[in-house]
């Protein structure tokens, strides 16, 4: 199994690691870098619990090879909070009860973060479309939509 030296910047910190060709990005984050806020919920790229930002774009990190992240910028849920202050999207999910068990939450947060970056004033339909690739079994999505709206309002 070939090993590759890669350089990835995760939440602003540069990591140089040696990885196998087949290592998935989610395993690099969880098993190698021990950033366990990114979750695995399905193995088939459907649930979205593993969503992270790759050069600012939301990707499901179970369908990206670690080597594909070489030389690129990653952001995970651990990167949202800055200087002890929650990001508005985090505030929104907490304040609007956009979470119950919290397992889908990191993926939802990253998808929503990417949405608000490209569309700071999304309509409810646009929010629902954006998160439709992220599954939640607890909330019925009602408060997740409200949480994103809260963050959008706060970021204005």
């Amino acid at each position, binding site marked *: 199994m070939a090993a590759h030296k890669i350089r990835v910047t995760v939440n602003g910190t540069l990591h140089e690691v040696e990885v196998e060709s087949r290592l998935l990005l989610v395993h690099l984050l969880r098993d190698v870098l021990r950033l366990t806020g990114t979750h695995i919920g399905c193995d088939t790229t459907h649930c979205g619990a593993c969503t992270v930002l790759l050069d600012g774009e939301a990707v499901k990190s179970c369908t990206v090879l670690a080597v594909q992240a070489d030389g690129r910028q990653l952001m995970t849920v651990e990167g949202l909070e800055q200087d002890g202050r929650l990001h508005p999207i985090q505030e929104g999910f907490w304040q609007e*009860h956009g979470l*119950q068990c919290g397992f889908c939450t990191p993926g939802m947060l990253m998808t929503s973060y990417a949405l608000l970056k490209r569309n700071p004033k999304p309509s409810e339909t646009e929010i629902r479309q954006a998160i439709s690739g992220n599954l939640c*079994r607890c909330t019925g999505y009602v408060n997740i939509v409200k949480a994103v709206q809260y963050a959008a309002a706060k970021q204005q």
Partner: protein
Amino acid sequence: MSGDGQGARGPGRVIGRPRRRVDGRAKVTGQTLFADDLFLPRMLFCKLVRSPHPHARIVAVDTAAARAAPGVKLVLTGEDFPIPYGIMPVSQDEHALCRDRVRHVGDPVAAVVAATERQAAEAAGLIRVQYEPLTTIASPEEALATPEPRIHDYGEGGNVHRLAHFAFGDVDEALRGADRVFEDLFFYEGSTHIPLEQHAAVAALDPDGRLTLWSSTQTPHYVHRELARALDMPAHRIRVIATPNGGAFGGKSDPFNHEIVVAKAALLTGRPVKIGLTREEVFYCHRGRHPVLMRLKTGVKPDGTIVAMDLETLLDGGAYGSYGAASALYTGALQTVTYHVPRYRFRACRTFTNKPPCGPKRGHGTPQPRFAQEVQLDKIAVALGKDPADLRLQQIAPAHSLTANFLKLGSIGLRECIERVVDGSAWRARRGKLPFGRGLGLACSSYLCGAGLPIYWNDMPHSGVQLKLDRSGAVTAFSGATEIGQGSDDVLAAIVAEVLGIEASDVKLVTGDTDLTPVDLGSYSSRVTLMAGNAAIQAAERAKVMLAQAAAEKLGVSPERLAFADRRVFDVENPDAGMGFADAVILAETKLGTIGTTGSYRPPASAARYRGAGVGPSAAYSYTAAVVEADVDPASGWVTVAKVWIGHDIGRVLNPVLARGQVEGSVYMGLGEALMEEQTFRRLPPRLSSALVHKIPSLLEYKSPTSLEMPEVVTYFIEEPDANGPFGAKEVGQGPLLPIAPAVANAVYDAVGVRVDEVPITPEAVLRGLEERGEGHAARVGPRAFPAVRWPDALCVAPPWEGGDGTAVGQKPGRAGRGGGGGAVATTGSRT
């Protein structure tokens, strides 16, 4: 119990007010550590080898190549697990690894423990198991027709696991005297929980050799017991820690084989051992909703009032007992709780099949018969020309009464639930009057607030809470309850805070740890708010007495004059005379020594004393009514739910934000079951041992509603405080799921005139109905036959209004009535 008082309504200082949940910050920062997030030094990884056959004898297991593979530290087989276990004392039918027989695809036969997960997986692939395939049983019908080979050598003979037959009054006589009798067959398909977190567990040894297991479990106490049993180890040498569950919905209530395997592996290697199941493995672990075929016969008066109900249920139990002995009884036990049913006969049959075992899923055994009754009531209303809402309003079970099967009902807010959803949806103006393709459907339900009996018979508390207060002003609550996302941490913190006059965020929680926390039976059967909540009130009231005694002495007033609010303890008649909460603790610690209190809770005794009466009793029952508005596309059969109005009698709201979230989540899960979710299997050809494989064991194909399918939900809370609930509160986690599927079915009928007497209500089913309707037939899609079951003789119990005392005819006095919850589940009569 509390100064705030039972029967009080509206918000208190903490309870009833919207709060951000106390564990929310950890969840939005990724700091919550789920079981699979734990990494311990020197940790090994475990993979299970699972059977590809649905039913086979294990002839030989060759592990030599796996043992020699790189990184492998340990290989285990059924030989290592001689002791059976199971959640119910009456069905100890599982081994952590199968010993001589596999009973469903996915049954584990061997385990490999290696330095990395990949090494474990690769070595697992080297294990050669020689099987001798046996006849496979795919359905209850096949189970009834195929007594041999038996999947288990216990039960009711053949492949029947459990039979029950109860008669509360002479139902045949009442049906003969009824003005109309309605008889229908219904089928409710099985579905699975899909907690987004796949099960995971880590086992490790303490320096002194004691075993610790971290696991995504809803029931650490039961896992603790079963680990001790299966490992033949003293329970006090084992510690079980329930990590926060990434969703559960009943799917993490059984003690699981993988938990026992990693525990054994840690004992044998002396190193931490982790296992994380794949999503496919979770589908095969299952323990979800039983597929249930139902025959429901109801006799009514000319105005539609029920005079008698006769229900038969046939359950597809899958390959093991799991909670099935209780599940079978739950398909009938609560049918008397929503409406007054003067006479009731209930027969249940649970069969074994060669599929993953079914167990408890949100609503445990109750959504199926609720679907049957609520759809049938809709038919009765149509036949009698009545408004379905009125038909229900006229026969709500009376509050504070006994049912025909001797369940003790408390507060009932169903009338207001119905009125609110009827008003909100403009039901009376719109039902039956919307354009073709759009319809409204109504359904109601009730659910228990905690099973009245424990899984294993004992007289000890079901919930315990300990409080520690110290001079820093810190309050720590220790509870065995498990946070599965429902918000139990927040509810416990709020209750303690309310009593002590502090904020919920002031209360530190230690939960779900069998070493540190008092026993709590677990987060199942909607029991935590009521049971752990009452225990928390008791513990907090006891602490309050200690603080009040010391503070009163300092202030020179009697303790009765003191109030606890806004983090202060003060004289109600002179609020300036007082002190901060922490100062009150210092005074109490000075005067009385270290401050610690306990509270415990055990549900009230049941009035039912017949055998099998252990399932159904509860300290209180919640009530729900829902109206669903649906669009049905006549061209495709596609059903789109446009809006849901739901009224829930919660007794008293402890945190409106959390409660609303539970209702919305229940509506979501109910819609999934109503429209798309299916745990179904297909049979492969005989050369593949007729394997019964899951049709769709991945989240890509197992359909569940996304944010795009989820409609608007309008939630109404009815606060009808129940004397047995903490501050009057009742459950909200499960009940609101129950009316959704029947309300959808009734809305489809209102929209296009098609009766779909089964769930899920697929486009195919709707189209089939529309075709029938076009051909002039009765437009009904659903089961056509109920197979012959050899029912045992009825256990006859006279209803309270016919002179019954809760015992069965001919029953000897004694403990018999305690059966059913678990320990004493027994057959209800001899075979005819």
